[in-house]
């Protein structure tokens, strides 16, 4: 017969803590690991110093023409001089305040959404009303604003418009398709599966061509449907299939007991899906959803093939300027950087959302 008193917790031994222990454990734990570490450092050494030399040390920042770029490094003067083109495309220079207001408005909206809690009617209203305000401002034709055809919209402005409209439209369509695929009604289920599998089996370029070339054949003669609108519809319908598959994977993570509990409480089908199943399914699937939206953001550059000028195509246009020949590298690095900022921002936001909405949080 023996009784053992409860012991207090201790800290781990010293050799398990601190920088040296971390290095030993993570970088130098075995001969193979040491070789990998050396290899990695060598690669970084080969890439990073030359890039820094090109992009910063030897680079030219001052001036306003190609002649001002003398060094062997990058000519950032090009980016500076063409910045308006990269951001706004061929939008008339004298009324750039209109796209600027729209873009600032979007930023303000996002900040507002961040600090006002919950999803309320005001937010829903803004999601619906803001695109209309934005369209009126950008396109004009009302309140004495000069008309600017969508073919003049371009650059980052166009990229952001396509990406955000694509996300906002493809999400609800995707949810409906995912619900359809789960449906007990055979016709609705088959149609959803057919649509999703059809779209997923076709490249986006094909969908864009279809939207741009084939779709107009269905319109009566003389009706000219805006090229940008066709691209937006094409992209939204395309991404909706992927969103639907993401959300379906979320449905599969929801235990059967959740459906049963909702049924036993007497909730209707739409209440059950809207209040219980969807909110949980979307939470589980946030990383995948954001992944889909990131690829959507990057895929916007494909609209170049139907003659729209997004950020990437504006580089080609600007680098073809006779005064600035040979500036593609700077242009592409700049565009890559802009794309990276946005996609990395989306990544960070998804991590933040995951943490915030984690239903297993303790304490």
């Amino acid at each position: 017969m023996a009784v053992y008193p409860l012991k207090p917790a201790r800290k781990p031994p010293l050799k398990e803590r601190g920088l040296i222990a971390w290095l030993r454990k993570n970088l130098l734990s075995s001969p193979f690991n040491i070789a990998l570490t050396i290899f990695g450092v060598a690669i970084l050494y080969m890439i990073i110093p030359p890039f820094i030399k090109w992009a910063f040390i030897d680079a030219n920042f001052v001036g306003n023409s190609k002649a001002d770029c003398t060094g062997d490094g990058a000519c950032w003067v090009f980016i500076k001089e063409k910045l308006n083109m990269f951001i706004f495309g061929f939008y008339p220079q004298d009324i750039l305040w209109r796209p600027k207001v729209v873009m600032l408005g979007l930023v303000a909206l996002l900040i507002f959404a961040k600090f006002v809690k919950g999803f309320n009617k005001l937010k829903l209203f803004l999601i619906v009303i803001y695109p209309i305000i934005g369209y009126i401002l950008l396109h004009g034709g009302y309140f004495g604003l000069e008309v600017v055809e969508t073919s003049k919209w371009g650059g980052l402005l166009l990229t952001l418009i396509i990406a955000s409209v694509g996300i906002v439209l493809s999400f609800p369509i995707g949810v409906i398709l995912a619900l359809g695929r789960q449906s007990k009604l055979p016709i609705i289920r088959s149609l959803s599966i057919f649509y999703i599998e059809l779209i997923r089996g076709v490249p986006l370029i094909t969908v864009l061509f279809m939207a741009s070339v084939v779709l107009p054949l269905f319109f009566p003669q003389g009706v000219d449907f805006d090229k940008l609108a066709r691209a937006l519809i094409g992209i939204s319908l395309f991404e909706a299939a992927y969103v639907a598959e993401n959300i379906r994977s979320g449905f599969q993570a929801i235990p059967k007991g959740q459906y049963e509990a909702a049924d036993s409480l007497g909730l209707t089908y739409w209440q059950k899906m809207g209040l219980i199943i969807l909110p949980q399914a979307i939470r589980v699937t946030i990383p995948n959803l954001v992944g889909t939206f990131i690829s959507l953001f990057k895929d916007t550059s494909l609209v170049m093939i139907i003659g729209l000028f997004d950020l990437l195509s504006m580089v080609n246009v600007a680098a073809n300027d006779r005064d600035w020949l040979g500036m593609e590298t700077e242009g592409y690095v700049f565009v890559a950087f802009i794309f990276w900022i946005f996609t990395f921002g989306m990544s960070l936001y998804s991590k933040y959302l995951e943490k915030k909405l984690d239903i297993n949080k303790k304490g």
Partner: protein
Amino acid sequence: MSNIIEMKGVNKWYGDFHVLKDINLDVKKGEIVVVAGPSGSGKSTLIRCINRLEEHQEGIIRVKGIEVNSDIKNLRQIRSNVAMVFQHFNLFPHLSVLENLILAPIWVYKKPKKEAIETAMYYLNKVNIADQANKYPNQLSGGQQQRVAIARALCKNPDIMLFDEPTSALDPEMIKEVLDVMINLAQEGKTMVVVTHEMGFAKKVANRVIFMDEGQIVEENDPQNFFHNPQSDRLKLFLKQILNH
């Protein structure tokens, strides 16, 4: 008093497997019926047919005189009178305890939010867990979660409470706190149908104990005779297995 639940000649199959065989069972208002039996004997399936989480293929089930069938209007009426407590609690993890409780009152019974919250707090007090109202289910222990689930069922103010092995997923130390709540309910005269292995509960509050095996009701009796004067060999064996360890 008339029967609040009537089951006549109920049969059910999973594919070719005959899970319920000619079940005849009537439950009176205010009666506490405990359903016992080995695993796979069909007892969970039986009570899940009452609120149509499972569909029976033959026979008639009526709840308060309304037939349980594919008619969605009937189903809605039945489910608003019948509440269920599950083995694995099935609380909604993305909603706080309070939000779990006010969901049905607001969306199914169209009560104003303020009134729903008052009712919810009343029942949370009743199951001794009002201090956890703003926590999330995963922050609670199993016993606490099951008491919340009972409170959520009570918020519907149901005529009938179904319990599907409510203590089977709990740590041994937490079983008592849940049973105590159930005993209180039983003594207040709620109609309860309870599937459980807790024979102590059956002895203490049941009006009737039903023994099932292989999809059939093998024996039913009042607790006194059920435990001390079993008739069938199968029940004798069952009681020997569970009571002598």
